[in-house]
């Protein structure tokens, strides 16, 4: 007798409970696979994909870091790649910003003729910003304009004329952190304007949740009728 009062989700006693168990398991599996399965798929497919400026950085960095070998163009490209990271603003951590600013200021200084480096070795002012913008070759339109906007916030006073060893060591890892992204076919496919994975997670999953709930509510209503399950006291 008492055995019949046992309630266990996995050992349903009545036809209704069996049907209910089946529905719950099916919906829960769909739910779990759609949410976590998709993310796992992203995880498997993801490939570290560099931004264009990271490729540029990699091609010029060995020469730039050994000052003599670098051409003016290499230094300009290096400065641009630094600015493309600094331009990420809020995402860039404060200590990283310090390193990036130092590297940028040093690069700009190293592009100047010997007699005009002084302006970068004192407290930065407008003149220094203008020189920096013209020596990097930034124009007043397109992405160049956005990079130029960053200059007053990232040119700092340079001590000496050499890049500091700490900065030299820190730069490659910082550049990699901000310029290499996890991408795959799903992130690069567009769907109604979205990167597909973003649309899937931010919109489709929510739609699916509402639909799953709707299905459950409808099925339960029907099931209760079919098995003559009276809910109310």
């Amino acid at each position: 007798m008492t055995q019949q009062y046992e309630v266990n989700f996995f050992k349903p006693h009545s036809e209704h409970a069996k049907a209910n168990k089946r529905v719950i398991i099916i919906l829960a599996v769909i739910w779990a696979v759609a949410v976590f399965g998709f993310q796992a798929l992203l995880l498997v497919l993801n490939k570290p994909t560099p931004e264009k400026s990271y490729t540029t950085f990699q091609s010029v960095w060995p020469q730039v870091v050994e000052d003599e070998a670098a051409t003016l163009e290499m230094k300009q490209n290096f400065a641009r790649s630094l600015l493309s990271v600094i331009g990420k603003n809020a995402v860039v951590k404060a200590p990283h910003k310090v390193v990036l600013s130092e590297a940028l200021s040093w690069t700009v200084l190293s592009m100047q003729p010997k007699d005009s480096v002084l302006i970068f070795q004192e407290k930065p002012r407008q003149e220094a910003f203008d020189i920096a913008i013209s020596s990097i070759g930034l124009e007043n339109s397109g992405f160049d304009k956005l990079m130029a906007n960053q200059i007053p916030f990232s040119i700092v006073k340079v001590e000496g004329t050499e890049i500091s060893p700490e900065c030299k060591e820190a730069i490659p890892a910082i550049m990699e952190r901000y310029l290499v992204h996890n991408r795959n076919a799903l992130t690069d496919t567009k769907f109604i304007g979205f990167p597909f994975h973003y649309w899937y997670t931010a919109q489709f999953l929510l739609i699916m949740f509402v639909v799953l709930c709707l299905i459950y509510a409808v099925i339960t209503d029907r099931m209760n009728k079919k098995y003559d399950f009276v809910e109310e006291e």
Partner: protein
Amino acid sequence: MNRLIKVIYAFLFLTICTGTLFAQDATKLEGELKLGPALILISILILFVLVGVFNRAKDTSTYWAAGRKISPVGAGMAIASNWMSAASFLGMAAIMYGSGYHGLSYVVGWTGGYVLLLILMAGQIRRYGKYTAADFIGDRYYSKGLRVAGACLAIFISFTYCVGQFAGIGLMFKWILGIDKTVAILIGAAVVLTYTLISGMLGVTKNMQIQYVIIILSFILPLFILAHKFGYFAFLPQVSYGAVVSDIVNGIAPGKGITALGHDFAHLPAPEYAMPWDPATGQTSFQWFAMCFSLMIGTAGLPHVIQRFYVVPRARDARWSVVWGLLFICILYWSAPVYSAFGKILSSDPNIGPLSKDAIVVYTAQLGNLYPLIVGLLAAGAVSAAFSTVSGLLLAGASAFSHDLYYKVINPKATDKTRMLTARVGTIIMAAGVAIVALANLGLIAQLVAVAFSLAGCTIFPLFILGIWWSGSNRAGAWGGLIAGSSVALIALVYFIAGKNGTVLPAHEFINYYLNAWYFALFGAPLAIITNIVVSLLSKNKTPVEIKKFLAEQVHNYKVS
């Protein structure tokens, strides 16, 4: 009812008149009294109180359970307004603004949990038929001690949840009044406490439906204008902002528009905004899974959410109210990422400097040069969202205190009057405590709220899920599971607080990563469930037959002959 509608129209009219009169103040980002938004806010709060007055609860049962006479759509709106807090309104956009794809774990976590709640619990909880979460725990596990523990947990969870809300209220009061954040939190706390004590005497559910409409309108309206202004308009901003996300990834050159401060509507390429688990955000895929999972099971264990099912007339209505509630909630959640996307571009100029992430929703509207009245309405919507949740939480905490602790345990002979008094005193103490903790500035709003979810997921969720679906789970098992879950929570919180104070405890990097205060339920909840099962199987005192019988016949409707 007619009288009510007239009052609502009168107030909306008054709001718009006064707001327009002083609207120009809303253009400064920070640091000034904004009279227009302040008046809109005051009018909306008075409106809520008036709606309460006209829908006054006639007796105690009406008061607690809204008379159980509410339609599933209405109950759905109540669920949604109870649910949509400062964390949904301000916090989610903030997380996505700062951490990109990681922020979507909050969006998915806070909605996906409702599926679990519905298919596993909603109807059954209603059929069990109690008034509070502690009532269920104490009754199902036939233990006064567990009832006390359940009540204390409900209070603690509501408390933690409130801390995030107070941070949001403080932020908005700071923005509206142009004052220091500490003073803003204190003023905000005083206003919300007064509001709760006044509205606490009135019927709540009707109020919640009107709150929902105001919150959702104030949140969505600015998006249509933003999308239109910057050339992304196509039917619905929630759909057309896809192009904004793609543009952030590939970069937008100047020329698309100008922000309110005269900067270009432009952005350098920023794939870190949308790409999954970008190293630049410092968040890993493990953290995404952990966060999402914790928020989901936390949703199914929050006392003030579970208690909503006791106010609907029938189990069928409990189910349908979840369907409607989730749809209403999703409308907000489909929209929040739009704010962070526009905010990302509008605030990209370095001249703007770092902004408070939690206020990014309001800054986005300001920088997008929206009509100041609309910005004011948005800020007022944020405060309403926080207020509706806080008053619900303070009420849940106070009812746990006066009903479950004081009346059922300490003083069963207490009169109605003393119980009311203890509820009031409880509300005041709790609000004061929350304000003090909120001043400590412990984290982003959404993160603070996530702590409450993990707590609920580790403690209350296992008790409900096993309590409903397995009659073998008994008192000893419940204690075992509760102690296991609480211990995990305790470890996570001790490490979190120590970390905030700069103290380094052993293995703190390991613990802070795997048992982080935002998502410790990932391990805590399974551990609590397993402990509950193992201890239940080992213990000699099985669940009494009366309880098994009740569970089988009332909740699962087994026909035992």
